[in-house]
């Protein structure tokens, strides 16, 4: 039997856990790419707390749902407009029968000379990056994060220099599901439309005359630059689906969040702490005249009584019977 036993149930543990992650803002900046599209995302989240905690026997617990709050989400898009070649056609086909070309590696009617054509754009006709500020749709983003943590107790010094037996929770695994975005009530389509308009206006700067725009569009096969860019970005009717695909697949935001949260939780402060040495009687200031028998009588009217303490030994923490137990002995 240990000298001292403390235990905490799941709900209190959860409350303490949630106080240990005080909503520090975590920034990330990640990029990815799709065909012809460069994607970047800037974001800021904070951990709001655990939605559900389940103790496992031993020293691990499951964090069923880690709630995070989004503070910022900005998507950056850059487009590598394809350098379309036009006017390429077969100028001269292989004559069907030429006696002295018997060993020619051509079949009759095969193209022998191709008209070279031209490219629509010179250099790299890249657009952007331009930003889509997605803060307005943050309430519609669902992020499901879970994880398994282990707890341990360790003697450590805090910032004031005092030593404690500190109980920490460290992640062994964090699972971040791909984020989902429900119907954004028209907000996301409006944001995307604004962004595409900007991109189209950037592109149109490269094309000085209206007839040139229409000739370019005839080659691209789209009625408008907006339609072309939407197609280039692979944005179709369901923009929420598109954004989910961009964030989850192209950016791999689940992995970004995983890294961010894992790191943050590795660096998190302790959940519980027990003073070591353990004070039975705290240090205090007392009047000299109320006591006697000093080794050396204090000079002033008061003196500082040092804390009466005992070292903590055999400190252990574990989960059992839906409680977290901290046990320790006094080294006296």
């Amino acid at each position, binding site marked *: 039997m240990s000298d001292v036993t*403390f235990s*905490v*149930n799941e*709900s209190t543990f959860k409350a303490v856990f949630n106080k240990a992650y005080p909503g520090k803002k975590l920034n990330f900046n990640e990029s990815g790419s799709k065909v012809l599209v460069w994607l970047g995302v800037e974001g800021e989240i904070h951990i709001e707390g655990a939605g559900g905690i389940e103790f496992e026997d031993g020293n691990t617990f499951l964090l069923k749902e880690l709630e995070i709050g989004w503070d910022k989400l900005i998507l950056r898009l850059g487009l590598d407009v394809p350098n379309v070649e036009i006017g390429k056609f077969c100028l001269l086909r292989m004559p069907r029968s030429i006696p002295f070309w018997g060993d020619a590696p051509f079949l009759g009617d095969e193209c022998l000379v191709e008209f070279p054509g031209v490219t629509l754009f010179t250099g790299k006709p890249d657009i952007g990056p331009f930003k889509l500020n997605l803060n307005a749709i943050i309430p519609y983003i669902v992020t499901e994060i879970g994880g398994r943590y282990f707890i341990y107790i360790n003697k450590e010094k805090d910032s004031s220099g005092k030593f404690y037996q500190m109980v920490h929770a460290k992640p062994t695994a964090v699972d971040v599901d791909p984020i989902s975005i429900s119907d954004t009530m028209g907000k996301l389509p409006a944001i995307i439309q604004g962004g595409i308009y900007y991109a189209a206006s950037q592109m149109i700067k490269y094309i000085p005359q209206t007839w040139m725009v229409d000739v370019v569009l005839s080659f691209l096969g789209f009625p408008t630059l907006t339609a072309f860019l939407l197609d280039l970005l692979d944005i179709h009717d369901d923009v929420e689906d598109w954004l989910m695909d961009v964030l989850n697949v192209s950016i791999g935001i689940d992995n970004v969040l995983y890294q961010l949260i894992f790191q943050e939780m590795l660096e998190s402060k302790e959940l519980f702490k*027990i003073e070591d040495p353990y004070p039975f009687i705290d240090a205090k200031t007392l009047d000299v005249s109320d006591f006697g*028998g000093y080794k050396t009588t204090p000079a002033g009217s008061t003196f500082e*009584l040092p804390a009466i303490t005992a070292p903590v030994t055999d400190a252990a923490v574990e989960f059992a019977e839906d409680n977290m137990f901290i046990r320790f002995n006094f080294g*006296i």
Partner: protein
Amino acid sequence: MSDVYGAISDDAIQRIINDTHVKAPFLFNYVAPSIRFVQDDAGRLVDTEELWVTCSPVEDSPLDGEVPRFTRMQPFSLPGIPVKLPYCIQIIDAALDFHPGNIIALPPELPSPLSEQNFSMSAMVQFGMACIPDKLSALQPIPNLAKHVWRLPVLPVTELVCFTLNVFAFGRVTVTPENIGAGIPFDRIGLAVGGIEIVDIEPRGLENVVECYLIAMLKSYVLPKLILSLEDQVVKSLGLTVTSKLTAGLPDNPAIEENELRIWLDVKVI
């Protein structure tokens, strides 16, 4: 069930008492000091200084810093005695035992073994009183010295008349929910002393009055303070600001069982 639970064993408490006895002797030694005269090189009386007279010697604390050995008590007066009298009360040994009792052997006057949820305690308490010189009690003026004695704050002695009492007691914890206003619940923790026995003290009336004093001390101070300390330590170890309340609906909370003092709390993490 409760949010938080804390338990401490009687063995641990016993070691804490023993350790504290060594490190903080002033908590176990209560002395109304006497005085002694200070003479100059020519043998003339020039001053007085306090003299902390005890029945048993008290070692200095091994701790660094200023740790006194005695807690000052006020000397008492007796009618007809023109000077106050020094004394000492020393707790030489103290023990606490939680159900099932396995540390303290209770005297035959008290029921044994301990009932469930009961604790027992024992203490060896040494009392020392000053003996008053005949000359002083007869109010015979003593030339020179007598004039000084009348003005002394306490009787100068170098030793006390000592006797030792062995005290045994048992009881249980009581909790009375109260409302201290503003709808704030409050658990008043008390002590129901089942019995107390002072070994080998006569007459009965003296035993009764000493028992009365000891029960009052136990009820108002020793055990409630121990429980509150445990409650405080449980909460403090959460490392957070919390509000706590004894968990209601449990048959015994705090409980004294399996050699432990146990407490269950409902907390609200703020």
